[in-house]
């Protein structure tokens, strides 16, 4: 007899197929942290306000405290642990270190995931675009400036679509002008967003 209060949940986490038995209304956050032991993802508010629990679900940034297990069936999830490339931190994480963009570190996993999602989207890494991309991630320590700079640097180092536009503030370390690939897709990103930063 299947127990209605438990479900077999199969999903792909950081490229690996995983199956766990969980309560269907368990939060994806708890599935990751408790059932799968991936404690990089943090819980801040549990209400969608802080972004500490951010993960990438089927290519989209989500707050894992607002997604339940049943909604993640068969999905592909990337957590901060999945941002390692061959077990090593990539340009983004190294830029965070170089800029001192982490202090207490609670917001850092969510920031990295939100930044990864933004960089993968290929939009130019202008200060405004970066601030909008991390607008749902609260940091009580850094004041955001170093975080924004680190993400812009990473965009330059990765030499993607962001390259050219990442430098208006003259900061990218290695902005060798990896001339605009990406960027052109899905016109939605060109729609002038309101200034999304917080004070």
């Amino acid at each position, binding site marked *: 007899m299947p127990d209605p209060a438990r479900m077999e949940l199969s999903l792909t986490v950081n490229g690996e197929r995983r199956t766990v038995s969980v309560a269907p209304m368990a939060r994806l956050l708890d599935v990751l942290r408790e059932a799968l032991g991936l404690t990089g993802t943090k819980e801040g508010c549990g209400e969608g306000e802080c972004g500490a629990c951010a993960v990438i679900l089927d290519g*989209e940034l989500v707050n894992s405290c607002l997604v339940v297990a049943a909604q993640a069936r068969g999905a592909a999830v990337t957590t901060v642990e999945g941002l390692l490339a061959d077990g090593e931190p990539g340009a983004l994480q190294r830029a965070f270190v170089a800029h001192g963009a982490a202090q207490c570190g609670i917001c850092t996993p969510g920031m990295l995931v939100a930044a990864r999602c933004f960089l993968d989207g290929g939009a130019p890494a202008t200060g405004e675009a970066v601030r909008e991309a991390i607008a749902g991630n609260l940091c009580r320590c850094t004041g955001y400036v170093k975080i924004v700079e680190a993400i812009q640097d990473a965009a330059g180092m990765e030499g993607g679509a962001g390259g050219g536009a990442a430098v208006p503030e003259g900061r990218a370390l290695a902005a060798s002008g990896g001339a605009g690939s990406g960027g052109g897709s899905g016109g939605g990103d060109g729609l002038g967003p309101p200034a999304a930063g917080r004070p």
Partner: protein
Amino acid sequence: MLSCVPVTSVSSLAEAFALLADRPRGLRVLAGGTDFLAQVNAGVGLERIGHVLDISRVGELRFTRLSGGLLAAGALATFTDLARSAPVRQALPALAQVAREIGARAIQNRGTLGGNACNASPAGDTLPILVAAGATFVLGGPRGERRLPAEEFFLAYRKTALAADELLLRAEIPALAPGERLAYRKVGTRAAQSIARAFVAVRAAAAGGRCSGVRIAAGCVAPVPMRCRAAEAAVEGRALEPALFEAARGAIEGEIRPITDLRATAEWRRRVTGNVLVRLLEGLAGPPRSGEDS
């Protein structure tokens, strides 16, 4: 304990309607979960939840399309979908614009138009726009479909016209005609990602210095998103000039029923709503600005 509540995740409307026909006790619909789970995580109303119907993957409800001058947006269209949708940006740019001012990316990626409507908060950002735009809501369930003007969907504070076995399926909105505009202003604590403290939307055609086809709606000033008929009557067919602006201000201040809560006082809301309406009408008198009109 909520974690023991059964969840039925459906991938088609037929499956959803089959479950709704059984009317399980304490059934709650789950879409993007941005309101539902924030409430659950805060422990609000848990005891009333007996069974969860997860519709988040019903592809039939996730679309936007424009045909014959009618824009249709499925209940599961996310804010990100609305912001990117070519039909929405063409037929009702204000809806695409406001979608970008709701929460941050992670909320926009999950939060849906239907969830915003069914949550029925007087501060829901899409709601005054839908009411001012003259949207029709299409509700459906095992007993069939019915249609309601958006303003009749909202019955009382967080209470909608949905029956226990009904879903909101889509909103249908007449596309802006040439010369017509829909302008809105959300007043929050900062430019984006904050819950509105005052919200006004105006749909109208301005020609020869006069407005016609005027529809006005306001958020945050009554238990429900409110259609402001007195203000509409004050503006309809009149010349767009200072005397009219003051008459419209008086009309809207007289008909709204704001309350004081932790975000603003009633008096502040009344004054700001009047001011915002005047600004929007002044804007209609001038040339189109970006974000209002294509």
